[in-house]
């Protein structure tokens, strides 16, 4: 009996001590901030850092890292040191949700950049909304994320006030692609393939609607399964359909293979896709024989923008292992928007981080406006970027080259 009470006592004491010490360390952080020393604000990053999409994910992480380093170097927000907390979601929604929960639990996190995939974003949004934590995606293009499930019927309503994005939606991107294919490339018969994912299927639907509206014909459709590699039967169908172009809604691992296998099957038609296939790995997966393939991507090419010169130079100076890839500029701008929001919140509160800082950061986000890497960065009432610039790229000699940059018009 004595032993047992001793045990209970020890357990209680240990638990108590642990709880207290945990509280203690948190208090230390805050005390440091108030005492004139620097507060640490964490910007979370969620992206696929391993797996087949890691080429893009590493670019997102590095670009946020660069934004944070730049802010610290220039002392952009007085009294605040920023740091990043990068987490790997492997493009899996369940991992994204775990990461979101982890970031929401860390009180020093005031904003998160990510994720890459629209499907992953769906699983994270509610977690962030419940924690009042700002999320800025550099790459999500699915309209439902910011405009609600009924955007297709014209009933837009913003489901989560904590969700923002620096990328243009698929509505704009898919229609832009259809307009280019019909008006500029003079294609009339498209074969539409998607990968059944939120991003790919959405994009393919929007493309088909606009292409038909313009007067084009969709001569066939097919769906792929992600992570599979043999699409030779689909390639045969494309060949037999007599299509003069293929539109693919999906990501580059499947898109590249589809393009290569379509050409090898004997259908010499261009494959067009969204920003998901705009990656050097698309050309590699196609076997390098896919000259003439097309991709749209949000924004103007970072290399062409005057505003991006410093970004490219600074990025190169950091000697990151991976390139900034398709979303580097948008990730940098996303992180910078959070930094600007934190700056505003601090300025409104005599240079100190207020209580309920997260809620105030969310409010400040809608007023953020600055010249970023990709142009003017600000958000509309849905949290979408006001920047509607898009670019069409084509494969030429094993590389993506710019064909047309324009602002989307109805």
């Amino acid at each position, binding site marked *: 009996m004595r032993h047992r009470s001793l045990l209970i006592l020890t357990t209680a004491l240990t638990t108590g001590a642990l709880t207290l010490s945990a509280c203690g360390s948190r208090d230390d952080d805050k005390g440091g901030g108030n005492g004139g020393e620097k507060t640490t604000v964490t910007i979370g990053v969620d992206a696929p850092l391993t797996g087949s999409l890691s080429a893009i994910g590493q670019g997102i992480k590095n670009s946020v890292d660069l934004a944070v380093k730049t802010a610290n170097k220039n002392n952009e927000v007085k009294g605040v040191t920023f740091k990043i907390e990068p987490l790997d979601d492997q493009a899996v929604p369940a991992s994204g949700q775990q990461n979101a929960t982890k970031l929401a639990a860390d009180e020093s996190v005031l904003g998160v950049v990510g994720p890459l995939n629209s499907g992953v974003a769906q699983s994270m949004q509610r977690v962030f909304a419940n924690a009042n934590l700002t999320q800025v995606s550099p790459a999500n293009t699915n309209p439902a994320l910011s405009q609600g499930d009924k955007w297709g019927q014209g009933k837009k309503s913003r489901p989560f006030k904590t969700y923002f994005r620096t990328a243009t939606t698929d509505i704009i991107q898919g229609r832009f692609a259809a307009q280019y294919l019909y008006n500029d490339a003079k294609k009339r018969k498209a074969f539409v393939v998607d990968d059944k994912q939120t991003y790919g299927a959405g994009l393919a639907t929007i493309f088909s609607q606009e292409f038909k509206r313009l007067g084009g014909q969709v001569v066939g459709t097919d769906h792929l399964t992600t992570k599979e*590699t043999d699409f*030779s039967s689909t390639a045969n169908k494309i060949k037999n359909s007599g299509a003069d172009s293929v539109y693919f809604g999906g990501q580059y691992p499947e898109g590249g293979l589809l393009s290569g296998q379509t050409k090898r099957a*004997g259908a010499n038609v261009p494959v067009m896709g969204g920003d998901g296939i705009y990656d050097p790995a698309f050309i590699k997966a196609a076997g*390098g024989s896919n000259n003439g393939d097309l991709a749209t991507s949000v924004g103007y090419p970072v290399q062409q923008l005057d505003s991006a010169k410093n970004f490219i130079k600074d990025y190169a100076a950091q000697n990151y292992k991976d390139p900034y890839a398709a979303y580097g500029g948008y990730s940098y701008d996303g992180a910078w928007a959070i930094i600007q929001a934190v700056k505003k919140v601090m300025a409104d509160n005599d240079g100190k981080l207020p209580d309920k800082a997260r809620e105030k950061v969310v409010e400040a986000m809608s007023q953020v406006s600055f010249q970023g890497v990709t142009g003017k960065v600000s958000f509309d009432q849905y949290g979408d970027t006001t920047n509607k610039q898009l670019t069409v790229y084509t494969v030429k000699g094993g590389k993506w080259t710019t064909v047309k940059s324009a602002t989307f018009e109805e």
Partner: protein
Amino acid sequence: MHELPQTLLTGLALGATYGLIAIGYTMVYGIIQLINFAHGEIVMIGGFGALTIWLWLPSNTSLTLAIPLMLIGAVIASVAVATAAERFAYRPLRGAPRLAPLITAIGLSLALQQIVWSFYPNAKKARPFPQISGDSFQLAGNLHLQRNDIFVLVAAPICMAALGLFIANSRTGRAMQATAQDPDTAKLMGINTDRIIVLAFAIGGGFAGVAGVAYGLRIGQVEVLMGFILGLKAFTAAVLGGIGNIYGAMLGGVVLGIAEALAITYVQDIPGMQQLGGGGWANVWAFALLIAVLLLRPQGLLGERVADRA
């Protein structure tokens, strides 16, 4: 229906690849009743073995000359890993409850993926595999044979015929049959069953190496995770054909490949089935076929005496 011959040819090339891999499942199962779930990874290692040889050769080597050398590299890599797996992962568990080696196989599969992922240069992304360049051959009006498919269409029947002759006619082949029938009696007859088991893994590994090269040529890339889906499909093919029967494995592979190709091409043309057709549903139809076959013939297409096993 003018695209039917092309669909069948595409399915045949795909199915021959499944069949080559299925041999490995079926041989090991036939002798020690183990489902070697790491076999897909042996294919992946074969693919990387071939790639290593290709990268090591001078860059202007012609592919006709390189393919035999790559094949040797692939087979050496696959056989080495398959026999090592037998020696160090499965042999210590001989006689253990059936679940123990099964779980070991799953663990080994993950371990092999991670080893290649960590240590092979740039294996974190898909690595391009050399391709036979040039247009496809026009066999008939609408029937084209792709150059990269020729390899598997030639290699699979040769390998299959060689294996059939070896099993039926050689002393060792007969010893394998005897071990599959009754390991204890075979041992009493003076057969070194340990050696036979290693041999089963080695032959399965060799076929996996060939399949790795075939896959690389067809798809144009090899990657760490490629073994998972290939292994799953090949296992399905082995069960479809009757696990334990080598001819069944090849037949199951071809049937599965053709069924997938037909499902992708034709199901959506059936009135009212528009939503259930296309590449996204190919696996559903392939497995529906598997269920149908197993309901009518639980032992598989060419299977025998499975009911008293497992």
